[in-house]
């Protein structure tokens, strides 16, 4: 029997391509997950004035650099989307690879930052501020990692001009990950 594509990848019962619709549902669930973490952090931060003596140790410049990296990677993601729309799969794949490079840069910087912080004695157990810090940034980092891995697969297909609609789907996810960091940055690095 000849292999055939699952109908869900192409049908559009709601007026939105099913793949893109699925990404929006993922984002809806992610809003609750990250919203819960950030909301809890904010409430505790306001209720614990002693946290200011801990938050002062986060490095604003590293946070700002990583924000720049993610904003730039979002630009590459939307340019990949633009290229896919122009049916230029190779260009879309190249932009997706640049987005992945942004993800890699973000994770490497995070790695150095966390190493330094842990060596300085700021661990998850040292204070509730640091528990939130590592949980929120760690959860976000896992999303960056997952997005980059998925993007590699999509870029491989896009390079062959296949499944170009997926470029938009991963882009929407990536922009959401960027938005989460846009809020994490002031909460963890600026409000000292």
């Amino acid at each position, binding site marked *: 029997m000849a292999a055939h594509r699952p109908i869900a990848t192409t049908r559009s019962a709601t007026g939105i391509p099913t793949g893109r619709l699925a990404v929006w549902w993922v984002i809806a669930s992610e809003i609750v997950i990250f919203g819960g973490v950030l909301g809890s952090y904010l409430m505790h931060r306001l209720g614990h004035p002693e946290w200011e003596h801990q938050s002062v140790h986060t490095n604003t410049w590293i946070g700002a650099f990583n924000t720049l990296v993610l*904003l730039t990677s979002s630009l590459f993601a939307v340019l990949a989307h*633009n290229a896919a729309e122009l049916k230029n799969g190779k260009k879309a794949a190249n932009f997706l690879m640049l987005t992945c490079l942004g993800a890699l840069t973000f994770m490497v910087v995070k790695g150095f930052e966390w190493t330094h912080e842990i060596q300085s004695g700021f661990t998850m157990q040292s204070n509730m501020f640091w528990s939130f810090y590592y949980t929120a940034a760690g959860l976000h980092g896992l999303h960056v990692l997952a997005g980059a891995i998925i993007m590699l697969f999509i870029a491989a297909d896009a390079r062959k001009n296949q499944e170009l609609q997926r470029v938009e789907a991963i882009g929407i996810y990536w922009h959401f990950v960027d938005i989460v960091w846009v809020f994490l940055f002031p909460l963890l690095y600026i409000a000292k």
Partner: protein
Amino acid sequence: MSDTSHPAPAGTAAVAEGHAHVDHTQAYVKIWATLVVLLIISVAGPFLGIRWVTLITAFGIAVVKAYMVAKHFMHIDLERKWILYLVATMLALMAVMVGGVSPDVMQHHGRNWTNVAAQEVVEKGLKEAPAEHGEHGAAPAHGEKP
């Protein structure tokens, strides 16, 4: 689409209706440049040492940046309306959660209750606070307290 400030989303009307897609690279780069300028302002804001300025430049600008990414990169306003309603519902649920538990979390005593453990943690934390602090032991950052 002629409106360069708001490029059309891929995979939507343009392709579905067989219209030729226009290259929006320049418009996207302009939006990115605006986001970078906003980032610089959000980092510079705390250096003024004025609390309300920090709140606006940090959190106000974060909201603006998130709006710009959602609108211009995710094209959320060009999606079906119920996608917007779906996202708004999730944000509302988040607000309900925060609104519902914040009185218990942010305050450590009420009319008939006292959160002794939280009070002790605050007192202990304030007592243990070092006389000087900064980013990883460096100079104090921005010279401002929340």
